[in-house]
Each structure stands twice: as structure tokens, then as C-alpha cells.
């Protein structure tokens, strides 16, 4: 019961945060230099045309009126119409968001699936060869720029070996008739995975490196705890101590970092999408900024904010699930 109460409380807390995100996004976008109207109308528009456009988008009104109008629009999930694409911003986001989410989920999965075993092995074999290798891998992972990793992967696997595709993504749920050489859904999924591999490694390497180090240090710390010694003193085997008594506690710092790494990964997604020519949120943001499409800029920024807030909430909730001290009353 107290877990449910904690969950509801945490969700309610997100509301003021999201209002804050809307406010800051609105003010920052307004502060960007340049006039969207002049870009829309091209060079030397007539004063009447400009005034008409301003009136149409409500740009002739004072800042606070525009702000509240926008806020109430957002509450109704109406983000306005993109100036550049001439379609609703929400439609554009719904088109692009799944692509970026697929990339994010896939790269975080890759990072966690490799980092957790690597970190545990490092901790268990501290200062032995396995630990040194994992340390070097992590160091390289943290210090190599992701776009460079992407370019190298394209050169090696797409051009030289010609085994994996280097551009765009295919959604695993796409209609087989729209995908080249696919006759059924399984073909589509296989193609989708092939397209995902290189971008996933590109985006996931940095997270993998960071997670490995966190996993190692928190595992080492937990293995020195009294309750681990107690388990040993009661005849619990080393394997079970790792899997059960130490594992759950050791994941707490990792969960925190996973949530925070979402921001880094969103930034990385912009680069990865550019390198691999993927039409996701990252490229949408860049297009929006280059064209002073202020409603699209606000909409996409807001969406990144929402993704991050949701990520942090998931982090907090998994924390509460893993550690009873977080959600229960009367804890110390």
C-alpha cells in the first residue's frame, strides 16, 4: 500500500515540474534573437502581410497573454502548428518520437546488459586482469566522442565489411510492404535489428562505460557490508551472495545514474541521428531551430523535458521498489 501511495505522490509532484518546464521553454524561445515572421515571409515583406501573420499566431499580444495562451494550449495537448512543415507540432512529434525512443531504449538496454556483468566481474576480481581490461574498456568508452565511434563503425561494418546498414532506422512494427525485401513481419523485425545495431553501439558506449564503473564501485562497497559477512558466516555460497544478498543493494547507485544519464543520451541522440541519417527527434530539433520554427522548437524542447521528467519518475519508483526504506513510513 505504501508503495502505491508513494507512486501517486511522486506523479503529482511531476505537475509543477512540467509547468516549470513549459514556462522556461516559453521564455527561452521568446528570447532567441531573430524574427520568425521575417523568415516565413522571405525578404522585404509588406507591413500588412507581417501584421496579418503576427495576428494569426498571436504574436502581436503582450508576453504574459501569449504565455498563458500557450500554457492552456499545452494543457489541452495542442502545441500549435509548425511554421516549416505546416502540420500540427504534436503530429510531427508523434511521428518522430518513437524512432528516438527506440534508439534510446535499445542503447540503454545494450549499456545495462554489458555494464552490469562487466562491473560485477571487475568487483569480484578486483585488481586482476579482468578488472584491468574492463577499466580500459570503460576509459575508452568515456573518452571517445560518440560521433567518431559512429563514423568508425560505418566505415568498418557498412563500407569495408558491408555487413550492416549505415543509414536510417526501420521500425520493427512497420508494414512489410513498405520495407525493402521484406515479405512478412519477421523479415521487418530482422531488418529493424540490423539497422539498430550500429546506432545503438554509437549511442550506448558512453552509458556502458559510465555504468560499468558505477556497478563496480557499488558492488565493491556492498561486498564489504556487514550483512554480506553475515551471509558468509551462515554458510551462504559466494554465488548466491553475489546474486541475491549483494546484487539488489548494489543496483541503487546505478538506478540513479541511469536516470541522470537520460539527458546525456538525449544529447547523444541528436549526434547519432545526424551521423546515421535517422529522422528522429534530434534532427527535428535541429530543423526547427535552423528555420526559427518557434512553435516546433518549443514543442520538441517540451517533449525532451517530459521524457526526462518521466525518466526521473521511473528512476524514483524503481528505487522505491528496490529499497523498502524509500517508500515506507517510519524509516530512518
Amino acid at each position, binding site marked *: 500500500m505504501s508503495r502505491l501511495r508513494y507512486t501517486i505522490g511522486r506523479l503529482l509532484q511531476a505537475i509543477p515540474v512540467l509547468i516549470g518546464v513549459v514556462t522556461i521553454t516559453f521564455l527561452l524561445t521568446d528570447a532567441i534573437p531573430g524574427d520568425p515572421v521575417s523568415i516565413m515571409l522571405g525578404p522585404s515583406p509588406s507591413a500588412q502581410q507581417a501584421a496579418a501573420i503576427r495576428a494569426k499566431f498571436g504574436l502581436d499580444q503582450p508576453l504574459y497573454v501569449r504565455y498563458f495562451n500557450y500554457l492552456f494550449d499545452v494543457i489541452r495537448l495542442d502545441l500549435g502548428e509548425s511554421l516549416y512543415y505546416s502540420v500540427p507540432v504534436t503530429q510531427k512529434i508523434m511521428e518522430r518520437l518513437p524512432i528516438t525512443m527506440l534508439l534510446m531504449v535499445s542503447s540503454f538496454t545494450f549499456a545495462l546488459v554489458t555494464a552490469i556483468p562487466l562491473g560485477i566481474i571487475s568487483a569480484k576480481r578486483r585488481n586482476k586482469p579482468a578488472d584491468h581490461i574492463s577499466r580500459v574498456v570503460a576509459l575508452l568508452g568515456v573518452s571517445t566522442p560518440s560521433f567518431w565511434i559512429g563514423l568508425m563503425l560505418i566505415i568498418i561494418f557498412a563500407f569495408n565489411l558491408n555487413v550492416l546498414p549505415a543509414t536510417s532506422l526501420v521500425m520493427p512494427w512497420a508494414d512489410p510492404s513498405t520495407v525493402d525485401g521484406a515479405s512478412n513481419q519477421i523479415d521487418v523485425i530482422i531488418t529493424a535489428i540490423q539497422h539498430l545495431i550500429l546506432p545503438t553501439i554509437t549511442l550506448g558506449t558512453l552509458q556502458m562505460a559510465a555504468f560499468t564503473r558505477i556497478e563496480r564501485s557499488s558492488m565493491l562497497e556492498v561486498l564489504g557490508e556487514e550483512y554480506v559477512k*553475515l551471509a558468509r558466516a551462515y554458510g551462504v555460497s559466494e554465488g548466491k551472495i553475489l546474486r541475491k544478498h549483494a546484487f539488489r543493494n548494489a543496483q541503487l547507485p546505478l538506478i540513479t545514474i541511469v536516470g541522470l544519464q537520460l539527458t546525456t543520451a538525449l544529447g547523444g541522440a541528436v549526434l547519432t541521428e545526424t551521423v546515421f541519417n535517422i529522422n528522429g527527434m534530434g534532427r527535428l530539433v535541429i530543423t526547427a531551430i535552423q528555420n526559427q520554427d518557434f512553435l516546433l522548437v518549443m514543442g520538441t524542447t517540451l517533449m525532451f523535458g517530459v521524457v526526462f521528467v518521466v525518466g526521473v519518475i521511473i528512476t524514483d519508483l524503481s528505487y522505491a521498489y528496490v529499497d523498502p526504506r524509500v517508500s515506507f513510513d517510519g524509516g530512518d
Partner: protein
Amino acid sequence: MAEPLLTVENLQTQFFTEEGVVRAVDGISFTVEEGELVGLVGESGAGKSVATSSIMRLVEEPGEVVGGTVKYRDQVIIDFEEGPDGERRPSDEMLSNKQMRDEIRGNEIAIIFQDPMEALNPVFTVGSQLKEFIEINRDVSGKEAKQIAIDMLREVGIPEPEERYDSYPHQFSGGMRQRVLIAMALSCEPSLIIADEPTTALDVTVEGQILDLVDELQDKYGTSFVWVTHDMGVVAEICDRVNVMYLGEIIEQAEVDDLFHDTKHPYTQALLKSMPRPDETVEELNPIKGVMPEAINPPPGCRFHTRCPDAREVCRRTRPVYQDVSGPEGYPHRVSCVKYESVGYEDSEPLDTEATAAFGGDIIEAQGESNE
């Protein structure tokens, strides 16, 4: 006399650090008989906890048991033999790591740790932790294990044990957690429980309750105990026999009445003197002067001579022999102090030590007064 339950002989555990070798336990010997409660007393750093983890073969790197024998009934926990190249190596008779896990830890020798706040895993319920250890160490089904756990929680005085079974450790107070740890040890039905300063982290009222509880349960189950503490008051209350440790060595061993009324070693005397007494009003307490030297570089001769109020020149040169000084009847009373040897202590010059020089021999004066 029947074979002792636990025999420790010349046990040596060393820590190989960058600064050098720390001889944390340096050749200690003692026994625990069936049903006996044996105290292991000394200041912080004397090597008490290292001694207990050595017995369980739980010393962690960079520490290592390097010599001696530990026997539990007829099972050899630690033993060394000389290899063909003259190197000392673990003997073949020693239990394997797997045997230690399956046959000794938990089901024959259980342990109660010092800090109840740290010894329970925060992410599992108290009941599930108890149940797990019972299942590992006793041949019972999961359902029976749960029932044993609940019964034992009731036994150690946890109210509403059925409900508390599903609580997490942070929902218990320190005293309650220590009761849980005691329940944990008893529910595995070991013959020996090593209690490593189990009441040190608790306040005095709770300590009293826990000691009463242990006394009562020990009568009921007949379990033997090794009780590690630095508190002579606790020793007097519950122990049958006492070993006093100083800097990795046992320097005096006697039955508890003997130790208190016929104290031989100046260190034991000083320990007793340092205890606050409710029946005496004093201006200041009588601590043992100075701090214990580091075990990495122990003083020559008698290790206590740097702080000993009775130290004489001979103490610096002569390693005291650990010998029996008891009368013809009763349990042996062993002590290692040159005062009880004929090596010329009487004729030797008194030594300026931390106890005599810096503080003007407070302990000797205080001793003189109380002897009057």
C-alpha cells in the same frame, strides 16, 4: 575431562599491508567446553574480532591465517603442515571451503555481529533473512523454516512475531535488531555461538535485557558461547571463563571468579580498575594510560611493559612465558607476566613507562588505597 567443543592452539593471523606485516593474532590458545560461556576480553585493536573471524575462516584480504590449529570436535578447521620444500602449508586434514560452508558455518558455529544496525540486509524482510539461514543450515521445508523463525522471534521477545516477520530491518530498533540476530543464531541450532561485542552498540538498559535473554536461552538450549567484549562488567555477569587479550596475545586466562578475585596480570588489574563502580564515588575514572602500540611493530619483551604500572627493566628484555599459576585444585589459571617467573623481576630496576612517568603512577596509588 571430555573433549572440548572448540580447541584453538597457537592461532596466528597476519595482515600483509603496505606498511608491513600486522600480527593481529599472534599465537593464541584457548578452549571452549560444551555448554560453557567463554569470554574474550581486551581493548579495541587487541585482535579479538580477527580471532573470531579466523576461527570461522572468514578473514578477508589482506589478512590471512598463517599458523596454528583450530578444531571443532573432531573436525579440523585450521591446521598446517610442513611441505616437502619446508614451507608451511595448510594440511590435507583441513575441511574444504565447501565443507566449512555446508557443515560448520551456521549449523555448528553461528555468529552474532557487533553492529545490529548494519548486520541485517536492508532490502529483505527480517523474516525472509531468518528463513533463508534456517533453510540453509537445517533440514527443514520452507514452511517449517518460517514457523521456526516465527517461534524463535517470539522466544527472543519480539512482540507479534507473525506480523513482524514481514517487516524490514529499518522498522526495528537497535535492541530489536540485536534480538533478531540472536534469534538467527539460535534458530540454526548451532552448538557454539560466537558473539562479537553484541551489546556494544546498544544502550545500557537494552544491553541488560539482552544479557538476561542470552543467560536464559543458554540455560534452555545449552549452547556454548564465545563472548567477545571489552566490558569487564559484562564478563562478570555472564561468563564462566575468561581470556584476556592484549595486542594479539592472550595474557591471562582463568575462571571468572578467579580472575576477579585473584587477578594476576597487571593489564587485567588495570582493566578492572578502569571500570566505573556504582558503589564508589571517585573524582576521576582510572583509565589505562597511553594507547595500545600498533601490532605492526610490537614492543620487545612483554608487550604491555610500555603501559604497565609494575614494569621493570627485565620486562623490556624478557618475553614472558604463558604458564599455569593456579593452585592444585580448580581450573587452570594461566598468565604471561615475568612477575610470576624467576627471571630476576624482584631485583630489576623499575622502568619509566607511560603509566608511571607521565601520570605520576596514579594506578599504583589507587591500587594501594583500595588494598587498605
